[in-house]
């Protein structure tokens, strides 16, 4: 029987948003849950995130943003993934996301859309379901 592959997650921040605590919190929680996690750090471009996701062969990109710009950011990352023909990578989003943003994001295929204070186990379960 084949040994089960660990879920691979890229946590990413695009643009100049400085709020990093959510991303760092998830980094540790995902690792504790037995996933392989890579964090891009701040100040990334959408193309850079897509390239890293492909190079690292991740299952999920977890985008974090606290500026309220997740719609713009997710759209740019999706576009970059399309160019790389890597749209099979799931995108999960979290941070400052309004209910209206969440609706639009769901429509784009971006799931989760969790706000600050979301129980971390809920997010871990979500990733596991996505990848299954």
């Amino acid at each position, binding site marked *: 029987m084949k040994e089960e592959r660990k879920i691979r997650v890229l946590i990413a921040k*695009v*643009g*100049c*948003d*400085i709020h*990093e*605590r959510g991303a*760092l*919190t998830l980094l*540790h929680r995902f690792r504790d849950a037995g996933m392989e996690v890579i964090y891009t*750090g*701040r*100040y990334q*471009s*959408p193309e850079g995130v897509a390239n890293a996701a492909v190079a690292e062969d991740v299952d999920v990109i977890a985008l974090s*943003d606290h*500026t*309220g*710009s997740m719609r*713009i*950011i997710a759209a*740019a990352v999706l576009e970059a993934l399309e160019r790389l023909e890597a749209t099979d990578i799931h995108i999960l989003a979290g941070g*400052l996301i*309004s209910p209206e943003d969440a609706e639009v994001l769901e429509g784009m295929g971006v799931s989760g859309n969790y*706000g*600050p*204070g979301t*129980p*971390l186990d809920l997010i871990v379960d979500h990733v596991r379901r996505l990848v299954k």
Partner: protein
Amino acid sequence: MREKTISLDRKFGHMVRTATQSHIDLKSCYTPKDCEQLSYEADLGDPGEYPFTRGLYPDMYRDRLWLKSFIVSYSTPEETNAAFRQYIANGMTDLRLLADLPTQSGIDPDHPSAWNSMMCGGVATYALNVYEKMLQGLPLENVVYELAHCGISNFIYFYSLLVTLMENRGLDVTQLRGNSINDPVRAKLVYACPDFPTHIARRVCLDHIEYSVRHTPKWRPFAPNGVDPCQAGMDAVRELGGCLAVGTAICQDLLERGISVDDYGAMVFSLDAESDFFETIAKFRAARKMWAKIAREKLGAKTKRATQLKIGIRTSGLSLQSQKPLNNAARVTLQILSCILGGVNSLDASSIDEAVGLPSYEARLFNLDTQHIITHEANVPLVADPLGGSYYLEWLTSKLEKEVNRYLDEVEARGGIFACLESGWLNEVMEANRLKVQREKAEGKRLIVGVNAFQGEGEEGPINKAIQDVAYKVPSVALREERVREVKEFKESRNQQALKRSLKEIYRATKEGRNVTRPIIEAAKTGATLGEVTGVIRLGYGIPYDPFEQIETPALVGQLVKESE
């Protein structure tokens, strides 16, 4: 059949902690024995007397209330200007300026990395024209401005814009009041700010301070910041320790430039008002006491002014929750109260809707009104240091001092605060505490109402929903496109020769080790942007123009570099 009765848990909601937020273990009661070693004269002193544990002034708030402020920075200069006017009419006395996130990182709106966070968190204040719009009709004299940005490039640049505005309006620049955070450790530790590496940031920080000490004596060009390290994971001990260490290091740097701590004058720290009520009060008292001692014993202060620490506050944004946001009113009110009981000098209180978005107008009025209520209805500020003499508080103040001193010794043993930053040790300390707190929350050892305890059942009610709905929304794609167009047109419209000359002077001053402030003021007048000034200083150090290494050096800048070789 008997009706089933509900059971009642008498232990429901009981305390789960016996230590403060920063892990200082507490007994259930404190007595005179716990304060035996303290001497009133040496450790407390009357308000207005060294070491200022009880406050900086004899009459404290009767003489002058704390400054009421908050960062006002919406997406456009017009909205921001209108908001300032409204808040001033409601009692705001201290204007905190900020910029959008790309500007704070050192780049202009037409930079490709600006797009995704453009006009978020503030105005894209890329050049003088935007400042003119944002501050149009607002006073520049007899008002306090604070620059609360991230990157060290920002402080020197926006200070230069304020000086330029005053010079252009024919005003006396010696009357410029306020402060710049200008803390190079915070810029790297918390923000990993891309504008400058730390050795450049430290030099630019000192240039700003030196120029300001000589030309705008009422401006405090440096305010070590504990707020952001604390929000990023440091506890109260390491927050205060960090400020004291950075303050000491920069004052020692200034000595090498011939500026003594007496020349410099009063120090300002920007500290965090956290949720732990007594620990926060003790922190402010310990901060004043410790700086007074350092200034006198380590930096050789001879004047009273140089031993005085002014405390500017931002209440904890991290403590605010998006779940049941009405509860944030209780959190902020307690934090404001701790500031006033701790004798702070200026107060920027977070808003109840801040976990949801940028604060709304009404939420901010609530903050101002809370301070008015504490003053006029609760009568809290009538007496200086009203908790002074409390066995618990005096013990806690003294305990914090001991813990902070232990931390300072460790920082010193590791080569000082800048070495601790460069080696990554500060980040490790910050992360370790952050994880510890995170674990405590997950294990129910630290309860946050509405988040990991007392969540309640069902949907949130209409008041909470309303708060969630009012928060300010970020600018649309169309608005961002308009801004990019505007900055491009602005750049074309400038006198290119004058611009080149002024940028060349910044380049030369950078290379020759001269103070860059005056050249930046002159450049601001020719329309030089923040991104250009930052890039030219970087080139002066032989590193790429663009902090993100995405764009080419602009042709005009390339020319001036060539001409200077």
